[in-house]
């Protein structure tokens, strides 16, 4: 019987995650606008956009993979959100994290991206196909420092279970990995910037160059699914980073605060930098964050 409770909670989490994700998107636009001296759209603009997209009457399809890609995208987003514990050891909000550990989450994160990339490629638009190659290349860039920090933490805490990682960080702010392993955390957080494709790592969807990258050909319902998936995915990743570096959360308020701080970190950084080219981004990730992270990594290795 518990599984149905789980499913019910999961639905709540997904809907909540979507709402939160869309809100974050709106806030981000607002902040950007204010920094640029504009008024900017309402913080609820993303809700409006989503409803608009869903209500469009026709959708254009380019093929089977094009058709399925938004499902993959959504599935990937939901999967990641549901596989990370928002509040560890809480029956409701530790989600389905019993299904797998950190390694599963890491690989499942690719699922949605792969789906989107394939759909984009199937659209037959060269820009859509170009964007995933940039994305994958950049991914190879940021994953190196990210994996460095993940492996470092796993070895340091002798676990790859996210719940156990959170449990290991309890007992005060100084037990957070951010302070226990500051260098690993810096590497991980820089990698996070890449993961969110925020400036200066925004070449994947660079609007001025390649339309909007993968979703160029998508419209109406398809785009709404993409959009939904992306929002949920974003929230899932914030939660993951919160669990990894900021000690997880013991209640919902804490979770909101911590993810919001991470969100602000990304937004503020992305608003003050110009854009890297792909290879510049890759080289950047393979040098500074890696070297910084290695300090803690070697410390753990020797210990």
């Amino acid at each position, binding site marked *: 019987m518990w599984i149905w409770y789980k499913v019910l909670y999961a639905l709540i989490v997904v809907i909540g995650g979507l709402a939160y994700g869309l809100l974050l998107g709106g806030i981000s636009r607002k902040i950007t606008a204010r920094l640029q001296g504009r008024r900017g759209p309402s913080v609820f603009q993303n809700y409006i956009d989503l409803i608009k997209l869903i209500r469009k009457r026709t959708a*254009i399809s380019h093929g089977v993979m094009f058709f399925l890609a938004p499902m993959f995208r959504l599935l990937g987003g939901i999967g990641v959100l549901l596989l990370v514990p928002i509040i560890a050891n809480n029956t409701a909000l530790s989600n389905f994290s019993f299904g797998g550990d950190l390694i599963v989450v890491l690989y499942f994160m690719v699922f949605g991206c*792969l789906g989107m990339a394939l759909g984009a490629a199937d659209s037959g638009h060269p820009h859509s196909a170009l964007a995933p190659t940039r994305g994958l290349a950049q991914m190879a860039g940021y994953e190196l420092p990210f994996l460095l920090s993940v492996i470092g933490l796993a070895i340091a805490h002798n676990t790859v279970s996210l719940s156990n990682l959170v449990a290991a960080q309890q007992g005060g702010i100084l037990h957070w990995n951010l302070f226990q392993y500051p260098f690993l955390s810096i590497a991980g957080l820089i990698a996070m910037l890449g993961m969110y494709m925020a400036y200066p790592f925004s070449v994947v969807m660079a609007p001025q160059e390649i339309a909007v990258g993968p979703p160029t050909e998508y419209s109406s319902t398809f785009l709404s699914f993409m959009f939904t998936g992306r929002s949920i995915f974003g929230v899932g990743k914030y939660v993951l980073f919160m669990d990894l570096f900021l000690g997880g959360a013991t209640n919902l308020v804490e979770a909101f605060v911590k993810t919001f701080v991470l969100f602000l970190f990304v937004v503020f950084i992305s608003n003050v930098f110009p854009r890297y080219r792909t290879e510049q981004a890759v080289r950047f990730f393979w040098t500074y964050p890696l070297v910084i992270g290695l300090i803690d990594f070697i410390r753990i290795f020797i210990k």
Partner: protein
Amino acid sequence: MVNPVVIIAVTLIAAFSIGIFQFLGKKFVRGVFWLTILFDFTAILSIAYGFLTKVIKAPIMVKIGGFPPPIGINLYVDQLSAYLGVVVFFIGAMAAYHWINRGIDDPEPKALVLMLLLLLGSTGMIFTQDFFNLFVFIEITSIASYGLVASKLDGFSLEAAFKYIVVGSISSTFVLLGAVLLYKFAGSLNMLDISNHINKSMYSGGMLIIISIMFLFGLLIELEVFPMNGWALDIYQGANPAVVAILAGGIVKGFYLVFVRSANYLKFPYLLKIGIIFGLATYLVSQFFAWKQKDIRRLFGYSSVGQLGLLILAGAFYINGNLTGFAKKYMLFAIIFFVLNHSFSKSTLFFLADLFGKRNIEEWKGAISQNKFFGFLFSSSVLSMAGAPPFLGFWAKLFFILAIPRQYFYIVVLVLIGAAAEILYYFNLYRIASENDGEVLDYKGSIIPSLFNVLVLLGLAVLGAYKFFTITGMEIQNAKFLAFITVSAIAVLIIGISRIAQWILALGMLISFSYHLIRNQNFVSVFNIQSFFVILVLVGAVIFLFATYPLSKKYSASFYPLFIFTVFSMVGISVASNWISLFIFWELMSWSSYLLINQGSKKPAWIYLVMSAIGGYSMLAGIKLLSTGSNLIPVFKASAIAAPVWAAILIFTAFLVKMGTAPLHIWARDAYGESPDGFTPLLSGVLSKMGVFGAILTIVYLIPHISHSNIILYGLAWFGALTALFMALLAVFQEDVKKILAYSSISQVGYILIGIALATSLGYSAALYHTVNHLIFKGLLFVAAAGIIYRTGTSYLPEMGGLIRRMPFTFLAFLMGIITLAGIPPLSGFAGKWLLYSALLEKRWMFILLIAMFASIVAFMYCYKLLHAIFLGQLRDKYRDTKEVPLPIVIIELILAGLTMAVGMKPSLILRFSDKAIKTLGFSNPGYAYEGAHRIVSKFGYWNAYFMAVFAIGSFIIALVLFFLVKAKIRKVGQLDIGYAGEVPDSPESVHFGYDLYAHMRRAVRVFIYPHVENSYRRIYQGLMAFVDYTRRFYTGDLNTYALWVIITLSFIFYILYKGVF
């Protein structure tokens, strides 16, 4: 039985009668000639047969002129001389037949007289037991060969003949001096008498040393020993090939027997050292000098000289090497096999070289690919010459290596290096000859002598295998299995007229073999690591063989026999009971797979072969290190006693080569990429796993017993990790579907290597799981690629695109293969990654874990590239009517795709087998545990495959349902109907993004993907070539220098004796 002296007398009379009565006409001359040959051959065969059936028990002594030895001259015919006589006359007859029927020139009666005299001289030389008489026969032989060499009467042959005369005269001067001084010293000329008279202490006197050296040195010149062999090479190059065939195939062997026997009679104490110095020098120098040789006859000449060097080495060990018991017997058989192998295959090669007529090997393009039967004869001889199993040369080499005492390990190493060098140049020639393009060139003349020779060679192969297994006393199953393999392959070859019949027969064989294996209670009840790999091989083979059906039309008749050969030899590897049988089947696998790859593309196959040879021979050297004085055939478990580090490293090299581990990977890209499409799945899915199997054996049985084993294992893991990373990175920048998959394969096998190197039970679980899983998904991808190439006619990615519309099933299967490859849950790929990472975490190998995980991220790049460039994007106009890939391939694709899904949901489908196998490796548990029905727990984390699969599929369905709930009306638009700056693009090509997808990435990683390794190999090869090209100028072609080297060598021998270097 015929009195041996009759042979000599009859031949002599015949020779003179031809000379005198040649006016009676050609028919008379030929008649007398053939009758004599026939008589001699029959006579000597009857003697040999008598020895063989043990009718004749003791050596035959024939008194001449009624005086008993030692006063009178006598002949002494023992087993070896009788056998050698048979060989000499057989080759002589073949050479004569070849000469008469080659259609270029007709041998004059004079030539036939000389031929008879040559045979007579060499027979007498072998038979006589009198030193002076020996000199006489040597002179008869020499004069006859001078004449025959010169008989072509062109510049080349006359030059060669004159050089031969001068050097030969010097040589015979030494022989004569030696014989006469010996008489002065011992008071007798009878070999046996002298032998009784001499004992080793007499050598301290000095006189006897000088005498023996004079005598043996004269023979050494005739034996074409470096550095006094320039004349011999000139003969091989310049003389009539028919003459060369008999000289190299028969006469020189007579000199060899005489040399070894004389040294034995003289009790020459320095034979071993002389043999090692000159034998090795001759062998190595000629094997390397041949690299740069363009003239095919001189090339064969180098090879002949090299073989003689090896023979001298073997003979020295046999006579003077203090070999005991088995080793002595092995060495004797090594010598016999070397002689037989060289005589028959080299003479065939000279015949064939003559028939084809071209001297420059560059002109041999298409020689064997366009003349099937010629090609068969040529291939058999070359394979036998290069020591490919199951030909005689292989058994000879194996016996030789086994027999060499362990303290002479450096000889083993040098001989094996030479053998690899030999393979390099022989198969460079073979590569050119099997090239498909080039004008149709035919050979002229009769191939009957070559055919006879090759038939003998094939018979000898059987004999060699039989003798090897009976003498070494290895388990009879090995021999039976080898016979079984050969018979199966021949059966498939015989019905070569119809590919479909071959396909059915081969498939039937594999399936019935598997069926019988499964029915075998022993096999099922004792499930161990070997059974695991047997099943892997058979399942993979059946699946991939099935998929070859549509492709088989364009393959030659030897495709399926070789396929069967490869598959069964892999089974042989998996069930091998000791290192030697592992080696035998390993070599079988290497060679048969080489021939298969060679059907696709030549140069990559050649590189594959050379690398395999290096690997195989280093394994043999390692096995040699494992053997002890009493135990020449090391078994797996007993090698626990004392395994030197080097043994493990050397043996491991072979496996690393097959696994394509960097930096031994250079063969892999092109060999995978350009082998026949029907074979590549087997190559990647199964054959590379034999490396895995061997690596597991080594790590389980050898590594624990050596010092620094932890460092070695850690190093291996690093090799695996770097391979996984860099090969993945290289794959990203390939533009050929099979080459991407090739790099991907090596990269994946790198993961497996990491798992093995962990040497923990979880590591083995990961490795074995991934082994099977890689078979499934890489097989799937290669099979699909084969189908796509079959339909589109290209493997070049930028040529493809948009094929999802034409090949939906293939796309589906390919997509699942890619998801598995990328290790994304919920398909089966993830389990392997999870197990491996958990194992690495458990062992705290953080850096390797980092690299391994990062490599899988890099892999996403080429995964996407494959899917995009083949199936997505714009469909080209020329593929509008392309059909889905053929049905058998679709079936296999879907079966494999279903498998990855099933295994992804329930990894225990594979893990239950690997668990059993791991238990037999000495572990109590597989390193992980089940918690509940599906949750797998390691020390670090947990993972629920079933849940993940249900979760993913469930969510997907929910997403789909949700979509249909909210969906708008969907309108399908045309292919070119894209948002393209408000325009409609004019052609699919103009908007298809399919070339150099990762140009940006290339800029970031340029330094890592620069082919450093390949360039280093190339530089080493070119450097060696340049060195060889420079040093081979040693053979100036100037007669004076040749004579000078004779004197220098003699002085050198005396010098080292004087300085007491010995």
